[in-house]
């Protein structure tokens, strides 16, 4: 910490460096936007999937589960639930069967009383999610 380094130069590096890496980040974002159609399974996004995503959101599923590894760590990963639970029927059956008052002493998913259409939408959303190219994550079916 001698006078060999000056505030003016430190300031230049802050502004210049930040701008530099921001531009680089934007360039990478631009490339990502171009590459996403091959990976994000967007052709599978139907009205039903969109409805499922909305239901996923307004019931705060992310408050217990992870989806592609992001969310809360209280309940299982659901990015691959479609595969783990054996397709849409497995998902729908599980959600429907949750007891209203929980399970004594154990964690339990609440009973949301979804309609059949809603259940189908959620299952469609999880099917779409399971087909996103996630670079082979999670490492195995247990999520």
């Amino acid at each position, binding site marked *: *910490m001698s006078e060999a*380094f*000056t*505030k003016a130069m*430190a*300031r230049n*590096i*802050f502004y210049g*460096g*930040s701008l530099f*890496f921001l531009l*680089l*980040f934007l360039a*990478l974002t631009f*490339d*990502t936007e171009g590459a*996403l159609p091959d*990976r*994000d399974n*967007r052709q599978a*996004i139907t009205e039903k*999937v969109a409805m499922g*995503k*909305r239901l996923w*959101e*307004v019931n*705060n*599923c*992310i*408050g*217990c589960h*992870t*989806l592609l590894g*992001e*969310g*809360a*760590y*209280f*309940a*299982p*990963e659901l990015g691959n639930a479609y595969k783990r639970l054996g397709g849409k029927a497995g998902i729908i059956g599980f959600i429907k069967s949750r007891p209203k*008052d*929980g*399970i*004594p*002493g*154990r*964690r*339990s998913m*609440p009973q*949301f009383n979804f309609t059949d259409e809603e259940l189908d939408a959620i299952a469609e959303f999880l099917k779409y999610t399971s087909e*996103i190219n*996630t*670079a082979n*994550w*999670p*490492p*195995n079916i*247990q*999520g």
Partner: protein
Amino acid sequence: MQYQSQAVAKLYFTAAIGLFAGQILFGLILGLQYVVGDFLFPAIPFNVARMVHTNLLIVWILFGFMGAAYYLVPEEAERELHSPGLAVLMFWVFLVAGALTILGYLLVPYSGLAQMTGNDLLPTMGREFLEQPTITKIGIVIVALAFLYNIGMTILSGRKTVVNLVLLIGLTGLAVLFLFAFYNPDNLVKDKFYWWWVVHLWVEGVWELILGSILAFVLIKTTGVDREVIEKWLYVIIAMTLITGIIGTGHHYYWIGTPEYWQWWGSVFSALEPIPFFMMTVFAFNMVNRRRRNHPNKAAVLWALGTAVMAFLGAGVWGFLHTLAPVNYYTHGSQITAAHGHMAFYGAYAMIVLTIISYAMPMMRGRKAANSNRSQVLEMWSFWLMTVSMVFITLFLTGAGILQVYLQRYSDNPLPFMVVQEKIALFYWLREVTGLVFLIGLVLYIASFFVGSKDPEVAVEQAASPTA
């Protein structure tokens, strides 16, 4: 306190401490739910308690940042706040909006809250940390704009110090990046991609600027080291923060459907993210060692040094542990992430807010520079209790995480999630007990505002014998 209008900060700090207490209470509920699964079910399910826990954290940190800005900006700019009235008004708007939101979480089912607040018109709810109803989010934007206007006008018409400019850049970035919270496409990958522009670029970007400038301010005041020296360090540190942190966003783009080159870009840059935190630690200790005076507020200096160390450990070291893509492949979304999150948020952001409160509160409560000896001793006890218990919470969660990763992801016979959770319950119990110690620390912290408040102030500063 040199300017009348700085007193506005007292409101903000008081609210911050109150919400902090709420956050810890809900943290304890969550910790118990991890081991007693049906605790408070179905009245307060886990997801609701977690939402309250994390949202209170964000809100009290924001209150702390705003209070810090209202306190230090006038002093740095050498003029009164542009509009103290607006600051008070915005305080109440923010507090009421925040309280209503939290009550909404607790009293109404989340889907009902979404319906009541018209989420269908502009769906933004139900994403981690951004669970607030859209109307609350709009409120946050309004409060942030009014706040920026108030702070900006004060800074631009007064003395322009580096501390003030960096703070202003950080706060502006905070407000601008929050706008991405309104972007919620049906495409899950794009949703997640831009969600991180709020979350990552906040906590590993602009918030670090705010942290740096608050820390620099407290160090200037308590050590008496030449402003020039501290300011140039501040520039170098925040330059490194953004250089590593912006592309470092890539460490969230490994497994969410984004192109695989992010595994390289993210790993390379986020591997360097500990550097600015390390520099911050070196910087803080260096400044204190070169102090020109012994400030009577020893508690504030302790908090400042603690922030530097814990931010480095929590954000730097624990972040590095699982940031490289090959490691993250196994640890992504496990208790390792939770461990890192706890120590990083406490070490970097909770502690910096407690630092500025510790420094500023005595003066706003009529002291010349510091609290009485008894009060400071109690505050330092609370520092050690909270900090050490947070270290242990992190260690226990790390233990839980390592076991979880092995049993669920790495071993030859991967076990289901819930089976693994039961096998690692011991760590959750240890975490919960440590959480109670943290609570004791918090109680002592709050008590330190009342104990010894009639006692005389710690003797006014003496000149330090030049060390180093």
